[in-house]
């Protein structure tokens, strides 16, 4: 029986999700005392007609909006400076990030720049160095996320900023803007969410509030990912996946990164594979490792994964194993429905075997000491080969 102990939790985000959600933005901006938002996005999003939808949503509100759609895939600080000038010269008083990934990273950093001073921006990189809240920040995500959009983190160049003030005030998930670039990005978005949520749910920092966010995320990915891949027009499913990504980001902001996250990010950086794909591969192995190491609350994972009936009908000592098996099955399904485009093992992801040791060493050397180097190596080896760990 799990009892909540000492913990802290914070999530300032208001979620607004579903039909006609975009049209709520003018109202919500007014509640944030903002009258002239700057929309930050990229050419891809504009081309897909989402900027036009956004403008339509503002009709009848009497609001003037600024639109900047030149965010590149790899943005730099130069761009942040330019955007802060646009923000100031255009007398904007709120930022709306329309899209995911680098768009959101830039938007968050610009928000720091305009609330503080752009010159001292570098000094604010790090953990919790911002002392006061930033300007109003709205996120309108698509289905091409990195998993950090709703989190307290943002990355630019070699800098990482971390502060609860970076979390959006409002996340608007509208079925009309929830689009995906490709099968891979859909899977990557969903799997980061699943991995983060699963680690929040089973990790040492488990608490009932992160659980609430994690539970919904796990369930939505499990119930909708395959459906969305086979029927990309399924609106409800896409909506659910973006919700999952948003909620997992909140959970992730309130936990210590787990093994799957640490290794996934490392492999992603070394081999330029989307981190969601890496975490997707590592997920069942990481969970098996947790079961062997301390068992934590892996058995509980079965509830959001399988639903009430199956959870209740499974004997206590088999629950964890069954949860892991569902993850393995999911890997197989993803492999199948995407025409083998989603790797199931590190080998299929073209990570050379001889590098396994290097990854483990690098992760350890870079300061992730929560787990031992042998633990990293063991998980990586199994994930490379696709060999489940023996249950003990």
């Amino acid at each position, binding site marked *: 029986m799990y009892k909540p102990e000492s913990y802290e939790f914070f999530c300032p985000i208001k979620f607004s999700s*579903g*039909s*006609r959600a975009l*049209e*709520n933005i*003018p*109202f919500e901006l*007014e509640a944030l005392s903002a009258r002239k938002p700057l929309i930050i996005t990229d050419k891809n999003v504009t081309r897909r007609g989402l900027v036009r939808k956004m*403008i339509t949503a*503002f*009709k*009848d*509100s*009497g*609001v*003037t*909006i*600024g*639109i*900047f*759609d*030149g965010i590149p895939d790899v943005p730099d600080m130069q761009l942040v400076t*330019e955007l802060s000038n*646009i923000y100031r010269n*255009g007398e904007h008083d709120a930022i709306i990030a329309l899209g995911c990934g680098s768009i959101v990273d830039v938007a968050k950093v610009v928000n720091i720049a305009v609330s503080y001073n752009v010159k001292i921006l570098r000094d604010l990189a790090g953990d919790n160095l911002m002392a006061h809240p930033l300007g109003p920040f709205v996120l309108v995500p698509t289905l091409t996320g990195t998993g950090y959009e709703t989190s307290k983190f943002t990355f630019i160049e070699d800098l990482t900023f971390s502060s609860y003030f970076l979390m959006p005030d409002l996340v608007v998930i509208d079925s009309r803007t929830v689009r995906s670039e490709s099968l891979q990005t859909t899977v990557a978005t969903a799997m980061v969410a699943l991995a983060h949520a699963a680690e929040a749910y089973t990790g040492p920092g488990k608490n009932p509030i992160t659980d609430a966010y994690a539970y919904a995320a796990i369930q939505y990915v499990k119930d909708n990912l395959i459906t969305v891949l086979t029927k990309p027009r399924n609106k409800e499913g896409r909506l659910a996946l973006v919700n999952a990504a948003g909620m997992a980001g909140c959970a992730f902001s309130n936990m210590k990164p787990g093994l799957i996250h640490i290794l996934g990010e490392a492999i992603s950086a070394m081999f330029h594979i989307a981190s969601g794909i890496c975490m997707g591969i590592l997920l069942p192995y990481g969970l098996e490792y947790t079961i062997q190491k301390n068992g934590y609350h892996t058995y509980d994972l079965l509830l959001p994964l399988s639903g009430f009936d199956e959870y209740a009908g499974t004997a206590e000592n088999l629950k964890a194993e069954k949860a892991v098996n569902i993850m393995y099955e999911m890997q197989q399904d993803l492999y199948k429905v995407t025409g083998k485009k989603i790797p199931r093992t590190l080998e299929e992801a073209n990570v050379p075997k001889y590098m396994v040791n290097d990854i483990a060493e690098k992760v350890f050397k870079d300061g992730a000491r929560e787990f031992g180097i042998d633990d990293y190596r063991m998980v990586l080896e199994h994930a490379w080969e696709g060999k489940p760990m023996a249950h003990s």
Partner: protein
Amino acid sequence: MGDYREVQAGSKPFKRAYIAVMLWFVGRAIQAAARVDKAVREEFEKLPEGFTFSLGVQPHGPYMIVGKNQKGRVKYLGWKPESKVVDLRMAIKNIEAALLLFTFQESTAISICRDRIDFDGDLPPALTVIRAIGIVEVYLLPKLISKLAIKRYPVWSFGRKYLGRIRIYFHSILGY
């Protein structure tokens, strides 16, 4: 910079016009129903004399204003809230939300549950108004549609429903 532009958000004249007509009609129908239907009359009897409420769309309307005059008669008071003292303001957050409500894709209850309507004023009169609008909807709309607009379709006598419907339409159109 070429990537930056400013846009003046335009307007949605047709949607606004539709909502304006609907509000106008519902306002007059409430006035009529308060004369014709006993249940609506009783609902309004609970409200104090001179009580005025408005229902409209944020931020620029359209609106309807209905009030009870000193003699206790319920009157449609037009569509300009500016010069009036309003006791209860019900504001739909945006025109799309109003459209969902007035095309009966969402019932009043669901619309409130989805946080699409703001209230400024006391709750008991707001509920009175919502119940009255519910009854008016049963009068105005065919069963198939009004079933979507309210939670429980009432069992009414033939006379109340059909004669009432004719009288309310008649009064609403003529406006007395």
